[in-house]
C-alpha cells in the first residue's frame, strides 16, 4: 500500500483545454500513458514501467481502434454500403466497438459471441442496439469464429464482415495510432513493448511501427500458459485458430502467464495503483514486471486493454478477499 501522501501532487499539471469533438468516434485513441509507481518498488531506478490505459476509449477498450479502422476501410473500398449489416465474431470488446461504431454511422450490427462471455459485455452490446447471436460456450472464441463463417456463407450478400482476425486494417490501426502515441508519450525512450495476444493486432501493428523507429526496441507477447485458462480476451496460440494478422516471427519473445498470477495482479493493481482493470491487463502487468526484474535500465510499455467494470460479475472477483487473506496476493514475480 502506498503511503498516504507519497503520490499527492499539490501542483496540478498545466492542462490543456479538454477536447471538444463532433462525434464520439473522435474520442478513439490518444489514451493516457500511466507510470506504474507502486508495483515497481524495488526495481532499479533506471527501469520505468508504463501502461497505456485503453479503457479510456469511448467503447471502453483497445478494440475501438481496430474496429474503426476496419469500418473506415470497408466504406472507402465500397465493401460496406448502407444496405449491409456488419457481422463479426467476438468475445466481447470488438463486439462492443462495432456496436458503438455501427450505431454512430447508422449500420445494423450482428455479433456472434460465445455464450460464456461476461454478462456485462453482452448487456453493453445489447444497449447499443446490436443483435447478439450466441455460440457454443464449450467451443470458446474459435466456435464463434466458425459459426460466424457459417452465417456469412449462408447469406454472403447481406453482410460486411470486418474479420478482425484476418483484416490487415486491424494491425494497421495500431501501426498508425498506438505505435506513434507510445513513441511520443515516452519521448522516444521506449525499450520494450509488452502486449497480450488476442487477435495479435495490437502487438503486430504497434511492434512494426516501433521497430521502424528503432530496431532495438524489443517486442514481447503475453499469452495464457495453457489452453484452458481464465484470461478473457487472450488466446493460447498453440491450441487456437491462428489469426492471419498474427506474425510470431516478428516477436522477440513470448511470456506465458498463469491465470492465477494474472488475477492476483488485477487485485494488486486495484489495491495499490488504484486502477481497476480486466484479466488481460493483469496478465500484461505480470509479464511486464517479470521482464522488468531482469533489466537494469529500460523503459517498458504495456497495454491495459480495458477497465475492470465489465468483469465484476465473473469468477475473477468470486472470493477474492479470501485469496488475498491466505497470502496469494504477495506472490513473487
Amino acid at each position: 500500500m502506498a503511503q498516504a501522501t507519497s503520490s499527492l501532487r499539490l501542483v496540478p499539471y498545466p492542462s490543456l483545454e479538454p477536447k471538444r469533438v463532433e462525434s464520439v468516434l473522435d474520442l478513439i485513441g490518444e489514451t493516457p500513458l500511466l507510470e506504474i509507481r507502486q508495483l515497481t518498488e524495488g526495481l532499479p531506478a533506471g527501469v520505468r514501467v508504463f501502461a497505456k490505459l485503453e479503457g479510456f476509449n469511448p467503447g471502453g477498450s483497445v478494440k475501438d481502434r481496430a474496429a474503426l479502422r476496419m469500418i473506415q476501410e470497408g466504406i472507402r473500398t465500397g465493401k460496406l454500403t448502407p444496405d449491409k449489416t456488419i457481422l463479426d465474431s467476438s468475445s466481447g470488446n470488438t463486439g462492443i466497438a462495432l456496436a458503438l461504431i455501427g450505431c454512430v454511422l447508422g449500420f445494423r450490427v450482428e455479433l456472434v459471441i460465445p455464450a460464456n462471455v461476461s454478462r456485462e459485455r453482452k448487456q453493453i452490446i445489447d444497449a447499443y442496439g446490436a443483435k447478439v447471436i450466441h455460440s457454443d460456450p464449450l467451443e470458446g472464441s474459435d466456435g464463434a469464429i466458425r459459426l460466424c463463417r457459417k452465417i456469412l456463407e449462408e447469406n454472403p450478400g447481406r453482410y460486411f464482415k470486418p474479420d478482425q482476425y484476418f483484416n490487415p486494417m486491424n494491425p494497421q490501426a495500431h501501426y498508425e495510432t498506438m505505435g506513434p502515441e507510445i513513441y511520443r508519450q515516452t519521448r522516444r525512450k521506449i525499450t520494450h513493448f509488452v502486449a497480450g495476444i488476442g487477435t495479435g493486432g495490437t502487438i503486430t501493428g504497434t511492434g512494426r511501427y516501433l521497430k521502424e523507429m528503432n530496431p532495438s526496441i524489443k517486442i514481447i507477447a503475453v499469452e495464457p500458459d495453457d489452453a484452458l485458462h481464465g484470461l478473457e480476451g487472450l488466446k493460447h496460440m498453440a491450441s487456437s485458430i491462428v489469426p492471419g494478422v498474427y506474425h510470431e516471427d516478428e516477436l522477440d519473445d513470448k511470456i506465458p502467464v498463469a491465470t492465477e498470477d494474472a488475477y492476483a495482479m488485477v487485485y494488486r493493481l486495484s489495491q495499490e495503483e488504484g486502477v481497476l482493470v480486466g484479466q488481460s491487463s493483469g496478465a500484461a502487468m505480470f509479464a511486464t514486471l517479470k521482464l522488468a526484474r531482469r533489466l537494469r535500465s529500460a523503459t517498458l510499455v504495456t497495454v491495459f486493454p480495458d477497465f475492470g467494470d465489465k468483469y465484476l460479475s465473473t469468477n475473477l472477483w468470486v472470493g477474492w478477499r479470501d485469496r488475498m487473506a491466505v497470502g496469494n496476493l504477495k506472490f513473487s514475480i
Partner: protein
Amino acid sequence: MPVRVRVPTPLRKFTQGADEVSAQGTNIKALVEDLEKNFPGIKERICDETGKIRRFVNVYVNGDDIRFLQNLETALKEGDSISIVPAIAGGR
C-alpha cells in the same frame, strides 16, 4: 451409473478429440477421479492443487452451476448431463 460429460475444446486433447464422454461417479468429486483414471492429466486442468474446481472452470449438472448446488459434493444420477465450461472465452 454412467453420466454424459461434455468436454470443452481445450480439454479434448485428453479425450482423443471426443466432445462428449461417458463417465462414472455418485458425485462430482468421484466423477473427476473417474475422468482422471480414463483420461490421465485432465484432473489437474479442472482442479487446483487443493482439489477444488479452478475458478476459471465452471461445471454444470443438467444446466445448473455446481457452485450453486453442492459443489464437488453435488450428487449425480444416471443419465445426468455434465458440462465442463471454461468460465471465459479466449480471443476477442
